Protein backbone atom coordinates (compact mmCIF):
# COMPACT_ATOMS: atom_id res chain seq x y z
CA UNK A 1 0.00 0.00 0.00
CA UNK A 2 3.03 2.20 -0.02
CA UNK A 3 2.29 2.55 -3.70
CA UNK A 4 -0.05 5.37 -2.82
CA UNK A 5 2.91 7.64 -2.44
CA UNK A 6 5.32 8.22 -5.22
CA UNK A 7 8.10 9.01 -2.83
CA UNK A 8 9.77 6.95 -0.20
CA UNK A 9 9.44 7.91 3.43
CA UNK A 10 12.97 9.29 3.51
CA UNK A 11 12.44 11.45 0.40
CA UNK A 12 9.32 12.76 1.98
CA UNK A 13 11.09 13.56 5.19
CA UNK A 14 13.91 15.35 3.39
CA UNK A 15 11.53 17.43 1.33
CA UNK A 16 9.54 18.47 4.37
CA UNK A 17 12.74 19.20 6.22
CA UNK A 18 13.76 21.46 3.34
CA UNK A 19 10.49 23.33 3.69
CA UNK A 20 10.96 23.82 7.41
CA UNK A 21 14.51 25.03 6.87
CA UNK A 22 13.41 27.50 4.23
CA UNK A 23 10.70 28.77 6.54
CA UNK A 24 13.20 29.39 9.30
CA UNK A 25 15.88 30.93 7.07
CA UNK A 26 13.97 33.17 4.75
CA UNK A 27 13.22 36.81 5.53
CA UNK A 28 10.54 37.15 2.88
CA UNK A 29 7.02 37.24 4.30
CA UNK A 30 5.65 35.95 1.03
CA UNK A 31 7.92 32.92 0.96
CA UNK A 32 7.06 32.23 4.58
CA UNK A 33 3.36 32.31 3.79
CA UNK A 34 3.80 29.95 0.87
CA UNK A 35 5.87 27.46 2.83
CA UNK A 36 3.52 27.61 5.78
CA UNK A 37 0.57 26.91 3.50
CA UNK A 38 2.53 24.05 1.94
CA UNK A 39 3.23 22.53 5.32
CA UNK A 40 -0.35 22.93 6.46
CA UNK A 41 -1.60 21.23 3.31
CA UNK A 42 0.91 18.43 3.71
CA UNK A 43 -0.56 17.91 7.16
CA UNK A 44 -3.82 16.92 5.47
CA UNK A 45 -2.27 13.69 4.21
CA UNK A 46 -1.95 11.09 6.99
CA UNK A 47 1.19 9.66 5.44
CA UNK A 48 3.06 12.88 6.18
CA UNK A 49 2.02 13.20 9.78
CA UNK A 50 4.82 11.18 11.26
CA UNK A 51 7.47 13.20 9.44
CA UNK A 52 5.80 16.47 10.41
CA UNK A 53 5.70 15.39 14.02
CA UNK A 54 9.39 14.51 13.96
CA UNK A 55 10.18 17.91 12.47
CA UNK A 56 8.29 19.62 15.31
CA UNK A 57 5.95 21.25 12.86
CA UNK A 58 3.24 21.23 15.53
CA UNK A 59 5.38 23.67 17.50
CA UNK A 60 5.90 25.75 14.37
CA UNK A 61 2.16 25.95 13.77
CA UNK A 62 1.49 26.84 17.38
CA UNK A 63 4.04 29.65 17.17
CA UNK A 64 2.15 31.09 14.21
CA UNK A 65 -1.01 31.58 16.25
CA UNK A 66 0.44 34.60 18.02
CA UNK A 67 1.72 36.31 14.85
CA UNK A 68 0.51 39.69 13.69
CA UNK A 69 0.12 38.59 10.09
CA UNK A 70 -3.38 37.13 9.78
CA UNK A 71 -2.34 34.81 6.99
CA UNK A 72 0.18 33.20 9.31
CA UNK A 73 -2.52 32.64 11.90
CA UNK A 74 -4.96 31.23 9.35
CA UNK A 75 -2.45 28.82 7.85
CA UNK A 76 -1.08 27.83 11.25
CA UNK A 77 -4.46 26.94 12.70
CA UNK A 78 -5.36 25.23 9.42
CA UNK A 79 -2.31 23.04 9.79
CA UNK A 80 -3.19 22.28 13.39
CA UNK A 81 -6.74 21.44 12.35
CA UNK A 82 -5.35 18.93 9.87
CA UNK A 83 -2.75 17.50 12.21
CA UNK A 84 -4.95 17.19 15.27
CA UNK A 85 -7.16 14.65 13.48
CA UNK A 86 -4.53 12.07 14.34
CA UNK A 87 -4.17 10.87 17.92
CA UNK A 88 -0.43 11.17 18.31
CA UNK A 89 -0.30 14.66 16.89
CA UNK A 90 -3.21 15.60 19.09
CA UNK A 91 -1.28 14.46 22.14
CA UNK A 92 1.72 16.44 20.99
CA UNK A 93 -0.34 19.62 20.73
CA UNK A 94 -1.83 19.00 24.15
CA UNK A 95 1.61 18.46 25.65
CA UNK A 96 2.80 21.77 24.22
CA UNK A 97 -0.20 23.35 25.98
CA UNK A 98 -1.69 24.55 22.73
CA UNK A 99 -5.30 24.76 23.89
CA UNK A 100 -5.23 28.43 25.06
CA UNK A 101 -3.57 29.42 21.80
CA UNK A 102 -6.25 27.65 19.81
CA UNK A 103 -8.98 29.27 21.90
CA UNK A 104 -7.51 32.69 21.13
CA UNK A 105 -8.11 31.99 17.43
CA UNK A 106 -11.86 31.93 18.07
CA UNK A 107 -11.70 35.71 18.21
CA UNK A 108 -10.34 36.08 14.71
CA UNK A 109 -12.00 38.15 12.04
CA UNK A 110 -11.61 35.45 9.47
CA UNK A 111 -14.06 32.64 8.85
CA UNK A 112 -11.51 30.01 8.07
CA UNK A 113 -9.44 30.76 11.16
CA UNK A 114 -12.46 30.50 13.46
CA UNK A 115 -13.75 27.34 11.76
CA UNK A 116 -10.36 25.66 11.95
CA UNK A 117 -10.09 26.61 15.60
CA UNK A 118 -13.45 25.04 16.43
CA UNK A 119 -12.57 21.79 14.66
CA UNK A 120 -9.16 21.74 16.32
CA UNK A 121 -10.78 22.18 19.73
CA UNK A 122 -13.06 19.24 18.99
CA UNK A 123 -10.06 17.13 18.02
CA UNK A 124 -8.17 18.18 21.12
CA UNK A 125 -10.96 17.19 23.47
CA UNK A 126 -9.99 14.13 25.48
CA UNK A 127 -11.02 12.92 28.90
CA UNK A 128 -8.05 14.77 30.37
CA UNK A 129 -8.31 17.98 28.38
CA UNK A 130 -12.09 18.27 28.41
CA UNK A 131 -12.20 20.81 31.23
CA UNK A 132 -9.86 23.06 29.28
CA UNK A 133 -11.38 22.75 25.80
CA UNK A 134 -14.96 23.11 27.00
CA UNK A 135 -14.31 25.93 29.38
CA UNK A 136 -17.34 28.03 30.22
CA UNK A 137 -16.01 30.92 28.12
CA UNK A 138 -15.66 28.61 25.11
CA UNK A 139 -19.16 27.24 25.57
CA UNK A 140 -20.55 30.79 25.71
CA UNK A 141 -18.67 31.60 22.55
CA UNK A 142 -20.09 28.52 20.82
CA UNK A 143 -23.59 29.50 21.93
CA UNK A 144 -23.10 32.85 20.22
CA UNK A 145 -21.68 31.20 17.11
CA UNK A 146 -24.64 28.84 16.94
CA UNK A 147 -26.89 31.87 16.44
CA UNK A 148 -25.03 33.51 13.58
CA UNK A 149 -26.21 33.72 10.01
CA UNK A 150 -23.16 31.95 8.65
CA UNK A 151 -24.30 28.35 8.16
CA UNK A 152 -20.83 26.82 8.37
CA UNK A 153 -20.07 28.51 11.67
CA UNK A 154 -23.55 27.75 13.00
CA UNK A 155 -23.31 24.06 12.09
CA UNK A 156 -19.86 23.57 13.51
CA UNK A 157 -20.73 25.35 16.75
CA UNK A 158 -23.87 23.21 17.06
CA UNK A 159 -21.82 20.04 16.64
CA UNK A 160 -19.44 21.28 19.31
CA UNK A 161 -22.26 22.02 21.74
CA UNK A 162 -24.12 18.78 21.09
CA UNK A 163 -21.23 16.37 21.01
CA UNK A 164 -18.54 17.81 23.22
CA UNK A 165 -20.41 19.65 25.96
CA UNK A 166 -22.83 18.28 28.49
CA UNK A 167 -26.29 19.76 28.81
CA UNK A 168 -25.29 21.09 32.22
CA UNK A 169 -22.37 22.96 30.75
CA UNK A 170 -24.57 24.51 28.09
CA UNK A 171 -27.22 25.50 30.61
CA UNK A 172 -24.68 27.04 32.92
CA UNK A 173 -23.14 29.01 30.06
CA UNK A 174 -26.60 30.27 29.10
CA UNK A 175 -27.21 31.45 32.65
CA UNK A 176 -23.89 33.19 32.75
CA UNK A 177 -24.66 34.95 29.51
CA UNK A 178 -27.90 36.25 31.04
CA UNK A 179 -25.97 37.57 34.01
CA UNK A 180 -23.01 39.85 34.16
CA UNK A 181 -20.15 37.41 33.80
CA UNK A 182 -19.96 37.35 30.04
CA UNK A 183 -16.73 36.27 28.48
CA UNK A 184 -15.27 37.99 25.48
CA UNK A 185 -13.93 34.82 23.86
CA UNK A 186 -14.81 34.70 20.21
CA UNK A 187 -15.63 38.36 19.85
CA UNK A 188 -13.10 39.98 17.58
CA UNK A 189 -11.68 43.33 18.56
CA UNK A 190 -12.64 46.19 16.28
CA UNK A 191 -10.00 47.13 13.78
CA UNK A 192 -8.66 50.61 13.71
Amino acid at each position, binding site marked *: *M*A*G*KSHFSASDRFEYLQ*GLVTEFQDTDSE*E*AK*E*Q*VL*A*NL*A*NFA*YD*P*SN*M*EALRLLQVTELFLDMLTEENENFV*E*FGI*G*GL*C*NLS*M*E*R*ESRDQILQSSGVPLVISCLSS*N*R*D*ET*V*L*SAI*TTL*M*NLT*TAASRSETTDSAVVQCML*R*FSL*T*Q*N*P*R*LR*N*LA*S*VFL*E*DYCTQQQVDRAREEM*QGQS*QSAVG*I*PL*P*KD
Partner: protein
Amino acid sequence: MSRLLWSLTSLHKMDRSVANPSVWDTQQLYKHHEQRTVAQTRPKYREGRRLKAVKVYTINLESRFLLVQGVPAIGVMTELVQLFALYGVIEEYRALDEYPAEQFTEVYLFQFKKLTSARVAKRHTDEKSFFGGQLHVCYAPEYETVEETRQKLQDRRRYVNRASQNTAKQHNLQLEENTVSSCTKTQTSAAPEIQKGSEKARMENVNRDDMGFSVLPLAPEDDVSYRLHGFEQPLQLQWTTDTTLPTEDKMGSLHNAIPPVTEKETKQSASCKKERDFIKRQKNLSPSIRFMPRTTHLESRKRKLEGQAFFLNEAAETETLIGPKLPELPKVDMEDHSLNVTASLIRQTMSKVTSVPEIKPVQVKTPTVKPRRRI
Protein backbone atom coordinates in the same frame (compact mmCIF):
# COMPACT_ATOMS: atom_id res chain seq x y z
CA MET B 1 -28.91 42.97 28.48
CA SER B 2 -26.90 40.31 26.77
CA ARG B 3 -29.05 40.72 23.73
CA LEU B 4 -28.22 44.40 23.63
CA LEU B 5 -24.57 43.66 23.97
CA TRP B 6 -24.87 41.09 21.26
CA SER B 7 -26.54 43.44 18.85
CA LEU B 8 -23.99 46.09 19.64
CA THR B 9 -21.07 43.84 18.91
CA SER B 10 -22.64 42.61 15.72
CA LEU B 11 -23.43 46.19 14.73
CA HIS B 12 -19.92 47.42 14.94
CA LYS B 13 -18.92 44.38 12.97
CA MET B 14 -21.39 45.16 10.23
CA ASP B 15 -19.56 48.31 9.33
CA ARG B 16 -16.39 46.45 8.69
CA SER B 17 -17.97 43.56 6.91
CA VAL B 18 -18.18 45.54 3.71
CA ALA B 19 -14.46 45.66 3.39
CA ASN B 20 -13.66 42.38 5.04
CA PRO B 21 -16.26 39.63 4.97
CA SER B 22 -16.19 38.20 8.46
CA VAL B 23 -17.89 35.34 10.17
CA TRP B 24 -20.74 37.55 11.22
CA ASP B 25 -22.38 38.78 8.13
CA THR B 26 -25.28 37.34 6.28
CA GLN B 27 -24.29 37.64 2.68
CA GLN B 28 -24.83 34.87 0.22
CA LEU B 29 -21.42 35.09 -1.35
CA TYR B 30 -18.68 33.54 0.68
CA LYS B 31 -15.05 34.29 0.50
CA HIS B 32 -14.10 30.72 -0.21
CA HIS B 33 -16.13 30.84 -3.42
CA GLU B 34 -13.79 33.39 -4.87
CA GLN B 35 -11.05 32.30 -7.11
CA ARG B 36 -7.76 33.37 -5.62
CA THR B 37 -4.88 34.57 -7.69
CA VAL B 38 -2.20 31.99 -8.16
CA ALA B 39 1.24 32.45 -6.69
CA GLN B 40 3.81 33.12 -9.40
CA THR B 41 6.80 33.49 -7.14
CA ARG B 42 7.44 29.99 -5.95
CA PRO B 43 10.99 28.66 -6.23
CA LYS B 44 11.49 25.68 -8.48
CA TYR B 45 11.64 23.02 -5.82
CA ARG B 46 8.21 23.68 -4.47
CA GLU B 47 6.50 24.55 -7.70
CA GLY B 48 3.81 22.03 -8.42
CA ARG B 49 2.59 20.88 -11.78
CA ARG B 50 -0.13 23.47 -11.69
CA LEU B 51 0.07 26.99 -10.43
CA LYS B 52 -2.02 27.32 -7.34
CA ALA B 53 -3.10 29.98 -4.94
CA VAL B 54 -1.66 30.14 -1.45
CA LYS B 55 -4.45 28.47 0.46
CA VAL B 56 -4.81 25.85 3.16
CA TYR B 57 -7.36 23.10 2.81
CA THR B 58 -8.97 21.67 5.90
CA ILE B 59 -11.92 19.38 6.32
CA ASN B 60 -14.06 22.43 7.04
CA LEU B 61 -13.56 23.67 3.54
CA GLU B 62 -14.30 20.35 1.88
CA SER B 63 -17.77 19.13 1.26
CA ARG B 64 -19.95 16.75 -0.69
CA PHE B 65 -21.55 19.87 -2.12
CA LEU B 66 -19.96 21.46 -5.15
CA LEU B 67 -20.82 24.86 -6.54
CA VAL B 68 -20.30 25.11 -10.27
CA GLN B 69 -20.05 28.59 -11.66
CA GLY B 70 -19.53 29.79 -15.20
CA VAL B 71 -21.84 27.33 -16.94
CA PRO B 72 -22.92 28.89 -20.26
CA ALA B 73 -26.66 29.62 -20.21
CA ILE B 74 -27.40 27.69 -23.40
CA GLY B 75 -29.38 24.81 -21.94
CA VAL B 76 -26.57 22.38 -21.30
CA MET B 77 -27.69 21.18 -17.89
CA THR B 78 -27.97 17.57 -19.06
CA GLU B 79 -24.44 17.64 -20.40
CA LEU B 80 -23.20 19.19 -17.18
CA VAL B 81 -24.87 16.51 -15.08
CA GLN B 82 -23.46 13.83 -17.35
CA LEU B 83 -20.01 15.30 -16.94
CA PHE B 84 -20.22 15.31 -13.17
CA ALA B 85 -21.84 11.90 -12.97
CA LEU B 86 -18.59 10.47 -14.30
CA TYR B 87 -16.98 11.09 -10.94
CA GLY B 88 -19.46 9.42 -8.64
CA VAL B 89 -23.06 9.10 -7.58
CA ILE B 90 -24.84 12.45 -7.50
CA GLU B 91 -27.54 12.62 -4.86
CA GLU B 92 -29.00 15.92 -5.91
CA TYR B 93 -28.40 18.80 -8.25
CA ARG B 94 -30.13 22.04 -9.01
CA ALA B 95 -29.64 25.33 -10.68
CA LEU B 96 -29.08 28.18 -8.25
CA ASP B 97 -31.16 30.90 -9.82
CA GLU B 98 -30.79 33.16 -6.82
CA TYR B 99 -27.02 32.99 -6.87
CA PRO B 100 -25.40 36.02 -8.50
CA ALA B 101 -23.87 34.84 -11.74
CA GLU B 102 -21.98 36.51 -14.52
CA GLN B 103 -23.93 37.49 -17.58
CA PHE B 104 -25.00 34.59 -19.81
CA THR B 105 -23.86 32.02 -17.29
CA GLU B 106 -25.60 29.84 -14.75
CA VAL B 107 -24.64 28.46 -11.37
CA TYR B 108 -25.36 24.89 -10.31
CA LEU B 109 -25.15 23.01 -7.05
CA PHE B 110 -24.23 19.34 -6.96
CA GLN B 111 -24.45 17.05 -3.97
CA PHE B 112 -22.36 13.94 -4.30
CA LYS B 113 -22.94 10.81 -2.26
CA LYS B 114 -19.32 10.68 -1.23
CA LEU B 115 -16.85 13.37 -0.40
CA THR B 116 -14.12 11.59 -2.35
CA SER B 117 -16.25 11.80 -5.48
CA ALA B 118 -16.71 15.52 -4.96
CA ARG B 119 -12.99 15.92 -4.50
CA VAL B 120 -12.14 14.06 -7.70
CA ALA B 121 -14.85 15.90 -9.61
CA LYS B 122 -13.56 19.25 -8.44
CA ARG B 123 -10.01 18.45 -9.39
CA HIS B 124 -10.99 17.33 -12.87
CA THR B 125 -13.51 20.00 -13.74
CA ASP B 126 -12.29 23.19 -12.12
CA GLU B 127 -10.97 25.69 -14.65
CA LYS B 128 -11.84 23.37 -17.50
CA SER B 129 -13.66 24.70 -20.52
CA PHE B 130 -17.22 23.61 -20.99
CA PHE B 131 -19.27 24.60 -24.04
CA GLY B 132 -17.16 27.66 -24.55
CA GLY B 133 -17.13 28.80 -20.95
CA GLN B 134 -14.65 28.15 -18.19
CA LEU B 135 -16.03 26.34 -15.18
CA HIS B 136 -15.17 27.47 -11.70
CA VAL B 137 -15.86 24.67 -9.26
CA CYS B 138 -15.59 25.06 -5.51
CA TYR B 139 -16.79 23.28 -2.41
CA ALA B 140 -19.98 24.62 -0.85
CA PRO B 141 -20.01 23.44 2.77
CA GLU B 142 -22.58 26.09 3.71
CA TYR B 143 -25.28 23.87 2.21
CA GLU B 144 -24.58 21.11 4.71
CA THR B 145 -26.85 20.37 7.59
CA VAL B 146 -25.53 19.98 11.13
CA GLU B 147 -25.77 16.23 10.80
CA GLU B 148 -23.83 16.24 7.54
CA THR B 149 -21.12 18.38 9.06
CA ARG B 150 -20.88 16.01 12.00
CA GLN B 151 -20.69 12.98 9.76
CA LYS B 152 -18.04 14.60 7.62
CA LEU B 153 -15.80 15.26 10.61
CA GLN B 154 -16.29 11.80 12.04
CA ASP B 155 -15.49 10.14 8.75
CA ARG B 156 -12.38 12.23 8.37
CA ARG B 157 -11.17 11.41 11.88
CA ARG B 158 -11.78 7.74 11.38
CA TYR B 159 -10.03 7.77 8.02
CA VAL B 160 -6.95 9.57 9.32
CA ASN B 161 -6.54 7.26 12.25
CA ARG B 162 -7.04 4.17 10.20
CA ALA B 163 -4.56 5.41 7.65
CA SER B 164 -1.93 6.20 10.24
CA GLN B 165 -2.55 2.81 11.80
CA ASN B 166 -1.95 1.27 8.42
CA THR B 167 1.31 3.09 7.94
CA ALA B 168 2.37 1.91 11.37
CA LYS B 169 1.42 -1.57 10.31
CA GLN B 170 3.55 -1.21 7.26
CA HIS B 171 6.53 -0.23 9.31
CA ASN B 172 6.05 -3.40 11.27
CA LEU B 173 5.92 -5.39 8.10
CA GLN B 174 9.04 -3.84 6.78
CA LEU B 175 10.89 -4.53 9.98
CA GLU B 176 9.96 -8.14 10.34
CA GLU B 177 9.54 -10.49 7.48
CA ASN B 178 7.35 -12.76 9.51
CA THR B 179 3.93 -11.57 8.49
CA VAL B 180 2.06 -13.85 10.81
CA SER B 181 3.50 -12.40 13.96
CA SER B 182 2.90 -8.84 12.81
CA CYS B 183 -0.61 -9.77 11.99
CA THR B 184 -1.34 -10.89 15.50
CA LYS B 185 0.25 -7.72 16.72
CA THR B 186 -2.03 -5.50 14.69
CA GLN B 187 -4.89 -7.58 15.83
CA THR B 188 -4.20 -6.83 19.44
CA SER B 189 -3.48 -3.19 18.82
CA ALA B 190 -6.53 -2.68 16.69
CA ALA B 191 -9.01 -3.99 19.21
CA PRO B 192 -8.55 -1.31 21.88
CA GLU B 193 -8.60 1.37 19.19
CA ILE B 194 -12.07 0.39 18.23
CA GLN B 195 -13.20 0.38 21.82
CA LYS B 196 -11.76 3.77 22.40
CA GLY B 197 -13.48 5.11 19.32
CA SER B 198 -16.88 3.96 20.43
CA GLU B 199 -16.33 5.28 23.91
CA LYS B 200 -15.26 8.67 22.77
CA ALA B 201 -17.98 9.25 20.27
CA ARG B 202 -21.21 8.34 21.95
CA MET B 203 -23.16 9.36 18.90
CA GLU B 204 -21.09 7.35 16.49
CA ASN B 205 -23.11 5.43 14.03
CA VAL B 206 -21.43 2.10 13.58
CA ASN B 207 -23.46 1.13 10.57
CA ARG B 208 -22.06 3.87 8.46
CA ASP B 209 -18.63 2.78 7.53
CA ASP B 210 -16.44 5.49 6.07
CA MET B 211 -19.03 7.18 3.97
CA GLY B 212 -16.86 9.90 2.61
CA PHE B 213 -13.44 8.42 2.62
CA SER B 214 -11.92 5.52 0.90
CA VAL B 215 -9.76 3.33 3.02
CA LEU B 216 -6.32 4.01 1.61
CA PRO B 217 -7.00 3.81 -2.07
CA LEU B 218 -4.52 1.57 -3.81
CA ALA B 219 -1.98 2.77 -6.27
CA PRO B 220 -2.49 1.81 -9.90
CA GLU B 221 0.05 -1.03 -9.76
CA ASP B 222 -1.57 -2.56 -6.74
CA ASP B 223 -4.88 -2.29 -8.40
CA VAL B 224 -3.65 -4.20 -11.41
CA SER B 225 -2.25 -6.90 -9.21
CA TYR B 226 -5.61 -7.20 -7.58
CA ARG B 227 -7.31 -7.60 -10.90
CA LEU B 228 -4.80 -10.12 -12.05
CA HIS B 229 -5.29 -12.07 -8.90
CA GLY B 230 -9.01 -11.91 -9.46
CA PHE B 231 -8.46 -13.58 -12.77
CA GLU B 232 -6.59 -16.40 -11.17
CA GLN B 233 -9.35 -17.00 -8.68
CA PRO B 234 -12.08 -19.48 -9.47
CA LEU B 235 -14.57 -17.73 -11.65
CA GLN B 236 -17.49 -18.14 -9.31
CA LEU B 237 -15.71 -16.42 -6.50
CA GLN B 238 -14.68 -13.60 -8.72
CA TRP B 239 -18.20 -13.10 -9.86
CA THR B 240 -19.49 -12.75 -6.34
CA THR B 241 -16.82 -10.35 -5.20
CA ASP B 242 -17.01 -8.09 -8.22
CA THR B 243 -20.64 -7.19 -8.37
CA THR B 244 -19.82 -4.08 -10.28
CA LEU B 245 -17.84 -5.00 -13.34
CA PRO B 246 -14.16 -4.33 -12.74
CA THR B 247 -13.78 -2.74 -16.12
CA GLU B 248 -11.41 0.15 -16.20
CA ASP B 249 -12.41 3.47 -14.89
CA LYS B 250 -12.04 5.83 -17.78
CA MET B 251 -11.12 8.67 -15.51
CA GLY B 252 -8.16 6.82 -14.13
CA SER B 253 -9.56 7.61 -10.75
CA LEU B 254 -9.59 4.98 -8.09
CA HIS B 255 -12.47 6.18 -6.00
CA ASN B 256 -14.56 3.12 -6.61
CA ALA B 257 -11.81 0.62 -7.21
CA ILE B 258 -11.24 -0.40 -3.63
CA PRO B 259 -10.80 -4.09 -3.12
CA PRO B 260 -12.85 -5.74 -0.41
CA VAL B 261 -9.63 -6.59 1.33
CA THR B 262 -9.50 -3.32 3.17
CA GLU B 263 -13.21 -2.82 3.53
CA LYS B 264 -13.76 -5.53 6.07
CA GLU B 265 -11.30 -4.44 8.63
CA THR B 266 -13.53 -5.18 11.56
CA LYS B 267 -13.40 -8.86 10.80
CA GLN B 268 -9.94 -9.16 12.14
CA SER B 269 -9.15 -12.78 11.53
CA ALA B 270 -10.41 -12.69 7.99
CA SER B 271 -8.67 -9.50 7.18
CA CYS B 272 -5.49 -10.84 8.67
CA LYS B 273 -5.49 -13.81 6.38
CA LYS B 274 -6.41 -11.70 3.42
CA GLU B 275 -3.71 -9.27 4.24
CA ARG B 276 -1.15 -12.02 4.26
CA ASP B 277 -2.41 -13.22 0.93
CA PHE B 278 -2.29 -9.73 -0.39
CA ILE B 279 1.30 -9.26 0.65
CA LYS B 280 2.25 -12.59 -0.87
CA ARG B 281 0.53 -11.52 -4.00
CA GLN B 282 2.35 -8.26 -4.05
CA LYS B 283 5.65 -10.01 -3.59
CA ASN B 284 4.98 -12.49 -6.34
CA LEU B 285 3.45 -10.19 -8.83
CA SER B 286 4.85 -6.75 -8.38
CA PRO B 287 7.98 -7.16 -10.56
CA SER B 288 6.05 -8.60 -13.46
CA ILE B 289 3.23 -6.10 -13.17
CA ARG B 290 5.29 -3.03 -13.03
CA PHE B 291 6.50 -3.61 -16.58
CA MET B 292 3.45 -5.29 -17.97
CA PRO B 293 2.94 -4.02 -21.52
CA ARG B 294 -0.40 -2.60 -22.43
CA THR B 295 -1.13 -5.32 -24.97
CA THR B 296 -0.72 -7.99 -22.30
CA HIS B 297 -2.96 -6.07 -20.01
CA LEU B 298 -5.64 -5.76 -22.68
CA GLU B 299 -5.34 -9.43 -23.48
CA SER B 300 -5.78 -10.48 -19.88
CA ARG B 301 -8.78 -8.22 -19.62
CA LYS B 302 -10.28 -9.76 -22.73
CA ARG B 303 -9.69 -13.23 -21.39
CA LYS B 304 -11.30 -12.27 -18.14
CA LEU B 305 -14.39 -10.92 -19.85
CA GLU B 306 -14.62 -14.09 -21.94
CA GLY B 307 -14.41 -16.07 -18.76
CA GLN B 308 -17.30 -14.15 -17.34
CA ALA B 309 -19.36 -14.78 -20.46
CA PHE B 310 -18.52 -18.45 -20.19
CA PHE B 311 -19.63 -18.51 -16.60
CA LEU B 312 -22.94 -16.96 -17.53
CA ASN B 313 -23.49 -19.46 -20.31
CA GLU B 314 -22.73 -22.27 -17.95
CA ALA B 315 -25.37 -21.04 -15.57
CA ALA B 316 -27.83 -20.82 -18.40
CA GLU B 317 -27.17 -24.40 -19.43
CA THR B 318 -28.57 -25.74 -16.20
CA GLU B 319 -32.00 -24.48 -17.17
CA THR B 320 -34.01 -26.47 -19.70
CA LEU B 321 -33.58 -24.15 -22.61
CA ILE B 322 -32.58 -25.09 -26.06
CA GLY B 323 -30.45 -22.85 -28.14
CA PRO B 324 -28.12 -20.06 -27.23
CA LYS B 325 -29.27 -17.50 -24.71
CA LEU B 326 -28.01 -14.01 -24.43
CA PRO B 327 -26.20 -13.33 -21.18
CA GLU B 328 -28.44 -11.47 -18.80
CA LEU B 329 -27.52 -7.99 -17.83
CA PRO B 330 -25.58 -8.02 -14.60
CA LYS B 331 -27.64 -6.60 -11.78
CA VAL B 332 -25.80 -3.50 -10.85
CA ASP B 333 -26.20 -2.32 -7.31
CA MET B 334 -26.71 1.44 -7.37
CA GLU B 335 -25.97 1.67 -3.64
CA ASP B 336 -29.27 3.29 -3.01
CA HIS B 337 -32.70 1.78 -2.54
CA SER B 338 -34.63 4.26 -4.66
CA LEU B 339 -32.04 4.08 -7.42
CA ASN B 340 -32.29 0.30 -7.38
CA VAL B 341 -36.06 0.50 -7.66
CA THR B 342 -35.78 2.85 -10.61
CA ALA B 343 -33.20 0.65 -12.27
CA SER B 344 -35.36 -2.45 -11.95
CA LEU B 345 -38.35 -0.51 -13.30
CA ILE B 346 -36.34 0.55 -16.33
CA ARG B 347 -35.13 -3.00 -16.77
CA GLN B 348 -38.70 -4.29 -16.71
CA THR B 349 -39.98 -1.78 -19.23
CA MET B 350 -37.00 -2.44 -21.44
CA SER B 351 -37.70 -6.14 -21.43
CA LYS B 352 -41.37 -5.44 -22.20
CA VAL B 353 -40.48 -3.19 -25.09
CA THR B 354 -38.02 -5.62 -26.55
CA SER B 355 -40.39 -8.55 -26.23
CA VAL B 356 -43.25 -6.90 -28.13
CA PRO B 357 -41.80 -6.56 -31.64
CA GLU B 358 -40.81 -10.21 -31.58
CA ILE B 359 -44.41 -11.29 -31.46
CA LYS B 360 -45.87 -8.74 -33.81
CA PRO B 361 -44.03 -9.64 -36.97
CA VAL B 362 -45.07 -13.21 -36.54
CA GLN B 363 -48.73 -12.25 -36.35
CA VAL B 364 -48.46 -10.02 -39.35
CA LYS B 365 -46.48 -12.40 -41.45
CA THR B 366 -48.63 -15.49 -41.14
CA PRO B 367 -51.79 -14.31 -42.91
CA THR B 368 -50.07 -12.61 -45.81
CA VAL B 369 -49.01 -14.90 -48.60
CA LYS B 370 -45.70 -14.04 -50.06
CA PRO B 371 -46.22 -12.65 -53.53
CA ARG B 372 -44.32 -14.37 -56.21
CA ARG B 373 -41.33 -12.59 -57.35
CA ARG B 374 -41.37 -11.24 -60.83
CA ILE B 375 -38.35 -11.72 -62.88
